[in-house]
């Protein structure tokens, strides 16, 4: 059975939304619609849906990484007339999309009959052509980590340590000043 991991998303980026033009998540093209609401999908799996928004509506989303596949996004627009969960990928590619969908169904134990829409192969080919004709450079994985998932853990730890040391140093200076009976004017 294919294994999947959920990719954590930072609160800052969830709050800023999915429409700011920063290219870094698998949100290029919807390839399928699963007739299951995200709440039901979350109840059946260990997936946690986060809340955010794009320029159409509020959304619930979860980014997954499937073994052997690129990341994908499960997304639901909260005001959509037909409620369910869309599957989004980074690059429209008919063959890979089909394989990814099959793997997703197995990984999440989704009956294929619940997939009520899949993107037309001709359209995916046209979308790919449109993407290539207007392509901007894609970000590196390091840039993606920095922008979307926040600073790497090691950088956060170093930052916390530096802030803590600076604070302790200023407390120490204040104590020395007090012992020496000096007053320090703020810079």
């Amino acid at each position, binding site marked *: 059975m294919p294994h999947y991991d959920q990719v954590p998303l930072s609160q800052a980026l969830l709050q800023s*939304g*999915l*429409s*700011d*033009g*920063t*290219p*870094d*998540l*698998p*949100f*290029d093209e*919807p390839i399928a*619609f699963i007739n299951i609401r995200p709440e039901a999908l979350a109840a059946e799996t260990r997936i946690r849906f986060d809340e955010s*928004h*794009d*320029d*159409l*509506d*509020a959304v619930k989303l979860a980014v997954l990484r499937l073994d052997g596949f690129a990341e994908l996004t499960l997304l639901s*627009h909260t*005001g*959509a*007339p*037909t409620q*369910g969960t*869309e599957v989004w990928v*980074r690059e429209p590619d008919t063959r890979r999309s089909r394989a990814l969908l099959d793997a997703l169904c197995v990984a999440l134990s989704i009956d294929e009959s619940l997939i*009520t*829409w899949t*993107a*037309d192969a*001709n*359209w*995916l080919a046209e*979308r790919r*052509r*449109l*993407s290539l*004709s*207007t*392509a*901007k450079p*894609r970000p590196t994985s390091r840039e993606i980590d920095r922008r*979307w998932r926040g600073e790497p853990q090691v950088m956060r730890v170093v930052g916390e340590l530096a802030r803590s040391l600076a604070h302790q140093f200023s407390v120490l200076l204040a104590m020395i000043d007090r012992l020496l009976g000096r007053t320090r004017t703020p810079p």
Partner: protein
Amino acid sequence: MTGSQGHRPVYHRLANNRTQTFADAAKVALSAELWGRPRRNGLVPRVKAYLGPLPSGASGIEFSTEVAADPSTPPKTAYWTVGRPGVRSDGEFAKIPVRISVVHYNFP
């Protein structure tokens, strides 16, 4: 909801305080253009809407357009992607000409 008004489909966008405020609705009505931006990873901008009339009692706008929507989208959604006939590219925005038929906002 059939999503049609005569022979031309109608679409709607629900009100929200970020991208579909009353001021946005007024701009769309005045300019007769609807704008869309790329998603974070969407390298090609597109206009997005729901298919069908604005639900009864909901706040938002209802519109029609002569520009054909993308041919393959999730149920009851409509996208107009830059590069398709009639979809204008303007910087990071996609723009389509629209005719607004309903603007309905509930104010507290």
